[in-house]
């Protein structure tokens, strides 16, 4: 109880800031943003590395956006490539046909992707747990097939090439990726720490009990899916600008959907730092290992996924939490709520609830001490 008091007092100290925003987090955010903004200007990075870091920012943003739905609400989507591709192709088409400025094509692409997510999401979000996941696989695959055969719009299997000189160069995209990431991190933090975050966690734990205390689950889930689809759609537009060429097989592929899941799960589902770290691991594997050993692709990801789910459901951020505990820091009880073991799954078959709370024994010890 005493810790509650001090926390309340700490929040009040930051006057002028909303209750959910801690001055420390704001400080770290600003410092990181400035450092990353200046890094390429100060350090002379290798050009290839510079570009890959820019791409990593995009994957971080996409992973975080996936995580709003997968981690905060507990609805694991295996179909986010549908929005990634929609955003990418709408953006590319707008650039090619109308010659709109790139940022506008990204935003419009994102909006279309978000609306598309709403159309299939509103009915399917009534499903929970594995049932929702299966539905998203269907949505993703159906979208891929439609896109592949709709060659007037997507160029079919030969894809679309962006007009040269329309968008920013790969070198410039680093900073646009950074802006995108910064916005997404800010939204993630807000969704997590504000009272909305608490409502989302309540939905994740028990939809009906949440409704019984006044949470409008349908509205919140729809809103989160729209927001998630919007950002992933913008990421698709970014990716189109980055590659200057996109085709439906790549943009809408199941691998693409899986990559968002991987980023979230490897890094730590339901956390903010997690998907960011997961994106680094993902890009490192993809760019540096797979270029040399393409045959290892799926095997490697599968192995990683199994290791994470078996040994550390909170992923890399779970490892960090453990490390922090070794160093004597006690996380708040609700930190564990992010875990992979989603309580939304059938409560009868729910041993994951235990595995989702890796630190429970430790935190017990911590409170009694």
């Amino acid at each position, binding site marked *: 109880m005493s810790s509650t008091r001090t926390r309340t007092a700490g929040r*009040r100290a930051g006057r002028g800031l909303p209750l959910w925003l801690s001055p420390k987090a704001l400080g770290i955010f600003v410092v990181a943003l400035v450092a990353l903004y200046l890094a390429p200007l100060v350090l002379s990075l290798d050009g290839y590395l510079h570009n890959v870091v820019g791409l990593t920012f995009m994957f971080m943003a996409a992973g975080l956006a996936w995580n709003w739905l997968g981690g905060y609400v507990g609805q694991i989507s295996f179909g986010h490539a549908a929005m990634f591709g929609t955003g990418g192709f709408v953006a590319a088409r707008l650039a090619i046909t109308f010659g709109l400025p790139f940022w506008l094509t990204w935003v419009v692409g994102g909006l279309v992707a978000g609306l598309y997510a709403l159309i299939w999401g509103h009915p399917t979000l009534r499903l929970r747990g594995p049932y929702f996941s299966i539905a998203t696989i269907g949505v993703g695959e159906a979208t891929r097939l439609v896109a592949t055969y709709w060659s007037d719009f997507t160029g079919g299997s030969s894809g679309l090439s962006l007009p040269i000189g329309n968008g920013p160069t790969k070198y410039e995209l680093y900073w646009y990726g950074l802006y995108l990431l910064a916005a997404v991190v800010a939204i993630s933090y807000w969704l997590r720490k504000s*009272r909305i975050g608490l*409502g989302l*966690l309540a939905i994740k*734990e028990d939809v009906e009990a*949440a*409704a019984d*205390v006044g949470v409008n689950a349908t509205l919140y889930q729809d809103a989160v899916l729209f927001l998630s689809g919007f950002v992933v759609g913008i990421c698709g537009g970014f990716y189109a600008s980055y590659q200057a060429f996109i085709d439906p097989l790549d943009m809408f592929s199941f691998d693409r959907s899986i990559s968002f899941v991987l980023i979230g799960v490897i890094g730590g589902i339901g956390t903010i730092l997690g998907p960011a770290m997961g994106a680094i691991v993902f890009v490192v594997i993809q760019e540096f290992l797979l270029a040399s050993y393409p045959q290892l692709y799926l095997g490697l990801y599968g192995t990683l996924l199994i290791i994470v789910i078996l040994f550390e459901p909170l992923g890399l951020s779970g490892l960090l939490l453990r490390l922090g505990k070794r160093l004597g820091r006690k996380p708040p009880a609700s930190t564990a709520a992010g875990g992979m073991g989603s309580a939304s799954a059938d409560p009868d078959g729910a041993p994951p609830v235990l595995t989702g709370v890796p630190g*429970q024994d430790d935190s017990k010890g911590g409170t009694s001490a």
Partner: protein
Amino acid sequence: MSALLVGESVCKYFGGLKAVDDVSFELAEGEILGLIGPNGAGKTTLFSVAAGSVPATHGRVLLDGKPVNGKAGYRSVHQGICRTHQIVRPFARLSVLDNVLVGHHYGSPEGSHSSPRDRAMEILDFIGLAERANQLPGELTLAGRKRLEVARALATGPRVLLLDEVVAGLNPVEGKRFVDLIRQIRERGTSIIMIEHVMHAVMGLSDRIMVLDHGRLIAEGNPQDVAHDPQVIEAYLGREDDEDGETVTPSAEERHDA
């Protein structure tokens, strides 16, 4: 006394089964209304309809003259009616404090409080869980989890609280404490309808009692009259003491039907 919550010929049918059949009721401001009846009598179904989580087949429920419709459960919470569950459903991986905060943020607490946290701590203090605010619900005893369920409902600022068997399953000491707690909740200005199998609790607390059997209202009145009502005795006849009768065993049902 004016009626706060009114049920007008509420019916709820599941196919051919009349779970609740033409039940009318009134709850006055500041009243505790007991709802008893054998297992399967339709008490919890009536609760779900009154709480707006399921729509009535016929009839309607009015809170302060405004209909509580069963289309979306969260909406009736905003109207000022909140229920607890017979089998407690805490948000397992949110701390006790956060559980209460969910109710506070998404309910309809009257007036704005200086800090949601202070308000939630005040409720936890009242309910007797303040020292456990930072624990997870799984670390509480059953009595503690039932208290949490009530605390979370109270945090939504209800005018009407529907308590579904909160005393059942507790040992006599805990049960006695809970009875005192319910009395205090009423004194704070919340009207209560309670389903309860523990007779001394429901008899001692209720201003009035309604008895359901097979979905129909068979008796209503003050506790003493209801306890001596021949129809009520008949409804319970042949049954063992109901204190631990929350599990519906087929044999109990058959005996009841016979």
